[in-house]
């Protein structure tokens, strides 16, 4: 039997560790974890970060969700939108455009025909202005929130945590997870920031302060 690449590489690593042993080390985790802040402060921090990274922010109450979503879509001229199968139907009751429910058998490229998409979210990190999507039924598959040019994302304040460790602790590792911090951007040409390359050029965040 010939030696497999796997055996060879693992064997080389063991040899290397024998040749150049380095004492075992424990990992000091003295950085900040488990932080909490009152609702108002988390809201203010998240809003500041989102705006700083060029996202549009629409605070609202649970009751006004549908109204605000409809306003945002109208404002952006979105006539045809996609939604994940598990999105709360109540959220679209004020919208008068065409709504297409996504499903796995729709070829992802055809999502390009949508003007926008509305999704919920799993967790958000206030300190970095990051929204985490985890592919749950109200967030949909990854392509859905990627291909259309407008992403309207609903964030409940109760799902907003202070920092990155608090956010990572809430994730389910096996779920396909996307971290979104503002719209897509590039600084590749003379370091000049350009918003919107391949991902949605507009990120509108509807923050429900009582949810």
């Amino acid at each position, binding site marked *: 039997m010939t030696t497999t*690449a796997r*055996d*060879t*590489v*693992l*064997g*080389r*690593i063991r*040899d*290397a560790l024998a040749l150049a042993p*380095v004492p*075992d*080390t*424990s*990992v*000091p985790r*003295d*950085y*900040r*974890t488990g932080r909490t802040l009152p609702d108002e402060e988390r809201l203010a921090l998240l809003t500041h970060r989102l705006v700083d*990274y060029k996202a549009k922010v629409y605070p609202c109450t649970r009751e006004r969700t549908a109204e605000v979503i409809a306003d945002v879509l109208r404002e952006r001229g979105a006539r045809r939108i996609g939604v994940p199968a598990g999105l709360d139907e109540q959220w679209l009751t004020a919208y008068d455009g065409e709504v297409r429910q996504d499903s796995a058998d729709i070829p992802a490229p055809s999502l*390009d025909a949508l003007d926008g998409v509305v999704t919920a979210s799993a967790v958000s*990190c206030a*300190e*970095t202005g*990051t929204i985490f999507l985890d*592919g749950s039924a109200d967030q949909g*598959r*990854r*392509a859905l929130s*990627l*291909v259309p040019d407008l992403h309207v994302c609903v964030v409940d304040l109760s799902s907003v945590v202070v920092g*990155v*460790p608090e956010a*990572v*602790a809430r994730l389910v*590792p*096996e*779920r*396909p*997870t*996307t*971290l*979104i*911090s503002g719209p*897509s*951007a*590039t*600084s*590749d*040409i*003379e*370091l*000049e920031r*350009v918003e*919107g*390359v*391949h*991902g*949605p050029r507009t990120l509108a965040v509807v923050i429900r302060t009582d949810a």
Partner: protein
Amino acid sequence: MSTFLGMPATPPRSPYGTGNLRGDRKFPKAAHDELRNEQLRRNLGKATRTIRTKRLGVTGELPDWEQLRDAGSAIKTDTMNRLPELLEQLEQKVTEHGGTVHWARDGAEANEIVARLVRATGSSDVIKVKSMATQEIGLNEHLESIGITPYETDLAELIVQLADDKPSHILVPAIHRNRDEIRQIFLDEIPGVDPDLDNVPAHLAAAARAYLREKFMTTKVAVSGANFGIAETGTLSVVESEGNGRMCLTLPDTLITVMGIEKVLPRYQDLEVFLQLLPRSSTGERMNPYTSMWTGVTPGDGPQDFHLVLLDNGRTAALADTIGREALNCIRCSACLNVCPVYERTGGHAYGSTYPGPIGAVLTPQLAGMDAAEDDPNSSLPYASSLCGACFDACPVKIDIPSMLVELRHQHTEQSGTTAEKLAMKAAAGVMKRPKLFAAAQKAAALGRIAGGRDGTISHLPAPLSGWSDSRDTPAPPKQTFRSWLASAEGAATMSAAAEEGARHTADDHEEDR
């Protein structure tokens, strides 16, 4: 089993003459030409200054930045100590979740694996997410040679690829190009581009968006690298800005990820450290616009065929060096490039490798060696530094690059047996331990600038450098400040010579002490 217990063998470097881990000439020569490129210097100066400022701003925001660095450094050290078990765990988890894991001893083997996987899909095109590992092994070149067209989808990588160019910076690979050049490259190379395209960055980005969107929608196979691979869960991660990564990781049927074995992390929780360290050190943002994390295959979401290629290519050789292995801790943030006075003047091309700047100067010789051929260009890389220490201060995982450079210089001189370099090195090491003497030598070297003649070379230096300068001319690149001259390879060489002098004097002093 063909493994046997015995004396551990030193693992091999990346095979000579393969991939992109070696330039065709030595650093001082390459740097000398690059130094004449005014545009490169202007662009780089602006880029590194801007990113530096942003990085300081966002790292200063975190009161626990140092604690995060300590954690990041320790996690990496721990990872390397447990690499076999962690890789086996990663393999097991990825497999459990429907992925397939491949192992590659070197770049050529990885290239073959990827080529075979692409062929099996029947596709003659692949879309690519910016990946240093695939650049290192020359995957694009290999795929092209067998009739498969790779499309780079990161804007800067696209510019570099269309211009048949090489990246000059880890983070902003096309920073050596200005907007007019990019406009011309697009006009020449993108089929059907609007002939009235102007040079406004937003418009250029829009042209790239239109061109690549069609590729994203139609290409069945994507190739990516990975920033992190979590052993505990089998989760892989790509950190990016433009959304091209999300496109590649989400839309195709088949995803092939090439990951260096050192990119594994033990626990999912470790992401809480690196998702803070990386963006803030890299682009100077609190968080990059997009990060994707996926575990094997998810039914109904993304590629249903997932392959992970684990790459050695000299990494185990680096691991076999107590000091050199620290280079494997690098998370490719590029902070060390942006603070390096040598890099800022010469740019990335002078290093001749996929990995430029301070980390490149230590990682490249670790991966590919510097003694395989008599005049190996890599042997000059450890000298591409003034040992000012800025890289160490900036590094989010606290890699002590200056000490590694000194060690590599030592290894090189030991191997090469060049007596002059050996002496200089010994002396330099001596001087560096004596800050006062180092400062004195710096002052002495400053006089060299003044002595620069009309022909652009320094042919005579005042004592104590005179002995050294008589034997060969020191080129004094025009229009340079002393600091940049000092930072250049020539400057560094002069410093070594000065140090040698200094050390001799110190030795004499000690004689008198007795």
